[in-house]
């Protein structure tokens, strides 16, 4: 089924376990360094209200002055288990995309906030890179390096997560 921005609580609560979801809108990448930073009180450089976080450290290179996504599959989510639930509640995150599943803290937060965990196919970096139609920005690049930065990906017609 199609999940289009804005990602509202209502849309998220309507999803059922096992649904195949296609996403259209902006997702923010964020993985180990970003989660630790936010958990320790770092200021988010983007508005995380109703946002979807993608556990992804992409390969992005600059070609002719613009960012080109070369590969963008999911990373293992369970490493963010200590942080994900609290961040979901604090910022009102609506979704997390990753792989390998998460734990009971995140599950409880999803239930409370009205958010979903979406499981992408690990290693499918090309299929998923094809869904990225534009790179709308990058944050915390200096601090954390390219794979750990927050990339703003506009995605459309994504293969189901």
């Amino acid at each position, binding site marked *: 089924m199609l999940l289009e921005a804005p990602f509202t609580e209502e849309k998220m609560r309507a999803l059922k376990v096992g649904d195949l979801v296609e996403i259209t809108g902006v997702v923010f990448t964020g993985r180990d360094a970003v989660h630790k930073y936010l958990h320790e009180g770092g200021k988010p450089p983007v508005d995380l209200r109703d946002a979807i976080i993608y556990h992804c450290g992409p390969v*992005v290179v600059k070609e002719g002055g613009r960012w080109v996504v070369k590969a963008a599959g999911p990373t293992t989510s369970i490493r963010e288990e200590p942080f994900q639930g609290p961040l979901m509640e604090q910022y009102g995150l609506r979704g997390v995309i990753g792989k390998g599943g998460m734990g009971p803290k995140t599950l409880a937060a999803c239930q409370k906030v009205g958010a979903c965990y979406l499981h992408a196919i690990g290693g499918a970096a090309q299929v998923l890179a094809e869904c990225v139609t534009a790179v709308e920005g990058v944050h915390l690049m200096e601090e954390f390096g390219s794979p750990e930065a927050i990339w703003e990906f506009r995605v459309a017609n994504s293969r189901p997560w």
Partner: protein
Amino acid sequence: MDAKMLQARLLELIRRTSCELPPDVIRAVDKGWRREKPGTNAKYAFGVIRDNIKLAAGKSQPLCQDTGTIICDVARPDWVSERAFRAAFERAVDEATRVGYLRQNSVDSITGRNSGNNLGPGSPVIHFHETTAKALTARLMLKGGGCENVGAQYSLPDTGLGAGRDLEGVRRCVLDAVNKAQGKGCGPGVLGVCIGGDRATGYVASKETLLRPLDDTNEDPVLAKLERRLLDEANTLGIGPMGFGGATTLLGVKITARNRVPASFFVSVSYMCWAYRRDGFQLSAAGRIAKWLYD
């Protein structure tokens, strides 16, 4: 061959390894896909995996964004020194990172700073062996962090697993590792197992054995039998691709052994994801790629 040419050949080895799965791995993926029932999540996952393999090769872009630990195994003839090979390989790695065949994947463990070009203490990893052959043989493996994190090392006896110091004990360790990995290592995976050695050499050998062709048969009939048995048993666990459930939990099991000291009995398990990126070539002194090893 001058340094520039060696660098260019090594860049091609990196590109091919990152973007194109070798035929033996593709055959195993196709076999897994055929085995899964239509309409299941396992079949769906295999469908995405197969599309991804085609896309990556067609676009010459990384199969997986985690281009992993760069591990190069080199049989080195007289005409190139370790120093010269390392210099050429490092320049090739730097270039491959700039053009996007490799992700910026080398992070200072103390400061957290990313070196930006995959170079730094311990990166890339090169294992040299001397050879009397005329051609240089280089094998490259790109091993992602997700699968590396689910590797495991056991010290036998392990009372929790009921694993003693024999092949039955080894079997219990290997199945425990598969069960603990679940979908986190991007299955269906391939296991490299080393029985014996010390903690360091055991893990190294467990990775080296992943350089074998996927569809070969172990020269040691005892290990060949254990490989077949573990593959069959792991595939009855129902973990399936990405842990979605299904009949294909592993694509292969490769086992090797090293002598041990009487006091130690280690079982080292390296898990390789389905994006089993390893390739290799034979390179003549004149710089001609004489053979791709897995074609």
